[in-house]
């Protein structure tokens, strides 16, 4: 008998058949991605992630949100996708075990797409979710980046961490399925990883190299520092994560029998990338970073550029240079109600930050400046930071020096705080933002960028009276009685008299 090669497929099947094997893998990945979207946990966390981001975008506005620091904003996109990543880990793992669980291995064993190619498809099935995460990250960060008050620089590598974490979760799910082919394995892994993450986050003295093996490495503390002082090896970390995203499925595919040259090459390259990333993100030049942070803390002037406005100098770290106009507007406003030489005295507004302890979980309060006429401004702006800065400016206008402002008493304290809040477009809001006390007339401390001012109950009472009167009227009296109001021996009762508010009941223990 003769053997003849026959053309087997009919016209429909022939038209549908892939020209390249990779097309089948991609089609399968698309199929698996759609199946993932039907898993309750994935759908729920996807919805939660989207909803949370939408809420952040819609509900934000006003306050410090209008003045985002982009080198921190990029990092803030990293933790939100983690729940989605965990859901994907479990569901991709379950999907990769489906054939084994349902007994279809034999059925599919004789099909064109090999088991290892199915493994590739499972790993790729997380890719649309990583792309979606990247889109959400881009929208969230982009929204902040286009804020007129945005300062600093975002890092593409930091922005990539969220999407890469999602992709890595899928890769991990696939690898677990191949190494430990039981559904419980992924749940145990997630639980173990969670406990480990809690431990890692609580143990701040872990070696740097160990902390950075985690996909997301947060920096405790809220005070932004110039991006050059962050000391985050973001690029290396992104390379480390990207390497893992290929390495883990690469190992899974090799275990599954896909020992083709392309798979081996990709796995080896991924291993090199992962190793390079892990080594690169290990601390190198930590001493230089510490020195740079100390320089920025102790001698910020060397790193700053200053601009002049109405006789005063405004000195900012380069990334904050765009905020000097906002600072100047506050200085002008506060000074507009001041009298005597304070109305024209040249001030130096100096941006300062304590960068020494950045990343170790402590936000250290800045010590007041000892330089006459120098006012401190921090690295956050907007919201409560504006009246706080105004209080700092007013303290220097009244006391002459920032380190003396914390000890203001009697009339000077009342005058300083009124200058700060009485000239504000929303005086009561500013006043209440400055003094976190329940009652407007009880004793309280008033926040500034450095040390707080202190208000006694009597001073608070006078201030409350002043704030109920038209600002222009009070400002005229302040200017007219400037010398008395800023004299160290003027009492709170005398302030009431000078500014024409009802006399105090009793005496003020703050009076000199």
């Amino acid at each position, binding site marked *: 008998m003769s053997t*003849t090669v026959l053309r087997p497929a009919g016209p429909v099947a022939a038209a549908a058949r892939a020209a390249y094997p990779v097309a089948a893998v991609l089609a*399968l990945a698309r199929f698996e991605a759609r199946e993932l979207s039907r898993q309750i946990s994935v759908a729920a966390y996807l919805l939660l992630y989207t909803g949370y981001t939408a809420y952040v975008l819609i509900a934000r506005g006003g306050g410090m949100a209008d003045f985002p620091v982009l080198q921190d904003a990029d990092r803030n996109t990293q933790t939100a996708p983690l729940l989605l990543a965990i859901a994907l880990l479990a569901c991709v793992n379950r999907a990769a075990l489906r054939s084994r669980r349902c007994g279809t291995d034999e059925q599919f064993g004789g099909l064109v797409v090999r088991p290892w190619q199915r493994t590739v498809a499972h790993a790729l099935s997380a890719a649309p979710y990583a792309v979606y995460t990247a889109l959400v990250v881009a929208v969230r960060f982009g929204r902040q980046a286009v804020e007129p008050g945005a300062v600093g620089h975002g890092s593409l590598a930091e922005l990539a961490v969220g999407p890469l974490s999602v992709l890595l979760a899928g890769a991990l799910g696939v690898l677990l399925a191949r190494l430990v082919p039981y559904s419980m394995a992924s749940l145990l892994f997630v639980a173990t990883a969670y406990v480990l993450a809690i431990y890692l986050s609580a143990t701040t003295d872990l070696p740097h190299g160990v902390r950075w093996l985690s996909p997301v490495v947060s920096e405790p503390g809220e005070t932004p520092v110039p991006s050059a002082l962050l000391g985050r090896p973001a690029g290396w970390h992104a390379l480390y994560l990207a390497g893992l995203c290929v390495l883990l499925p690469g190992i899974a595919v090799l275990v599954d029998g896909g020992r083709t040259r392309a798979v081996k090459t990709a796995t080896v390259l991924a291993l090199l990338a992962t190793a390079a990333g892990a080594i690169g993100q290990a601390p190198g030049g930590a001493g230089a970073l510490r020195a740079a942070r100390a320089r920025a803390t102790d001698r910020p002037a060397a790193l700053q550029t200053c601009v002049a406005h109405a006789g005063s100098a405004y000195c900012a770290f380069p990334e904050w240079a765009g905020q000097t106009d906002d600072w100047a507007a506050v200085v002008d406003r506060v000074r507009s109600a001041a009298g005597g030489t304070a109305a024209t005295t040249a001030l130096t507004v100096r941006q300062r930050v304590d960068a020494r302890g950045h990343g170790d979980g402590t936000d250290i309060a800045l010590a007041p400046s000892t330089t006459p006429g120098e006012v401190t401004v921090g690295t956050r702006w907007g919201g409560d930071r504006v009246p706080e800065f105004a209080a700092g400016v007013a303290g220097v206008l009244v006391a002459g020096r920032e380190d003396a402002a914390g000890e203001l008493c009697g009339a000077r304290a009342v005058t300083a705080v009124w200058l700060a809040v009485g000239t504000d477009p929303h005086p009561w809001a500013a006043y209440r933002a400055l003094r976190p006390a329940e009652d407007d007339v009880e004793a309280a401390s008033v926040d500034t960028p450095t040390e707080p001012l202190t208000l006694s109950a009597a001073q608070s009472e006078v201030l409350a009276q002043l704030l109920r009167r038209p600002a222009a009227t009070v400002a005229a009296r302040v200017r007219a009685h400037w010398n008395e109001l800023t004299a160290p021996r003027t009492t709170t009762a005398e302030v009431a008299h000078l500014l024409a508010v009802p006399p105090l009941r009793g005496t003020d223990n703050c009076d000199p």
Partner: protein
Amino acid sequence: MTTTVSATGLTLRYGGTRALDDVSLQLTRGVTGLLGPNGAGKTTLLRVLATVLPPDRGEFTVLGHDPGTAGGRRSARRTIGYLPQSPGFHPDFTAFEFVDYVAILKELTDRGARHREVRRVLEEVGLGEVRGRRMKRLSGGMRQRVALAAALAGDPGFLVLDEPTVGLDPEQRMRFRELVARRGEGRTVLLSTHQTEDVAMLCHRVVVLAEGRVRFEGTPAELTARAAGRVWRSTERDPGARAGWRTGTGDFRNVGHPPEGADLLEPTLEDGYLLVLDASRAEVTAP
């Protein structure tokens, strides 16, 4: 007739057991029945021909492709539709999704064309109406048909069916026969079954496998002819018969070596099959 599937010297061992022992056969277009007792090696042979299992020795071609090479195996797999004996199911998939999934594994990647193909094969097995129903909600017979539809997807030139009628009711079996007969027109179908009547009704060729070896290869008529003059009727069970059973008329139908002057009956394919098996047992036990 043109040979479409050709196997020579296929041998496969499971530990110390020789599941296939130098199996050679030639398949042509049409439906070929594969008969044999349990443990004869039928499923192993089908798995080898479906390229699920590689043989220890021997070679075979499927529609001209040699599965012994990587490229040939890939080409051969594009032509094969395989329905295993106990197909698995993904319970959360719908019938459509399950067949669609298998179609992707067969490299049918053009989404529109693939979906048309999936609808077509589901219609062909009579499940067009329930294609949106989840597998876990389908009856056993329906699931079997979904698995058959999956095997049919891509219009394979070589269809390997391992006991596909197990669990089907008589009506479903009749429909199944219609379907397989249609498929056998212009394509090669290898049907493993214990149902000799399926073979008698569907197959143009039949292979009998026993103890891992081919004991018969020919047409159903030739297999039936093996029993010519060896089936007889008697009022009592003939002790010399290889097999004998009381029929509905009360008489005994005996298969074996009839005595002189026996009342001979028209043989069936099953009679021929029994005699082939009997001969193979005798061969195995012969010193």
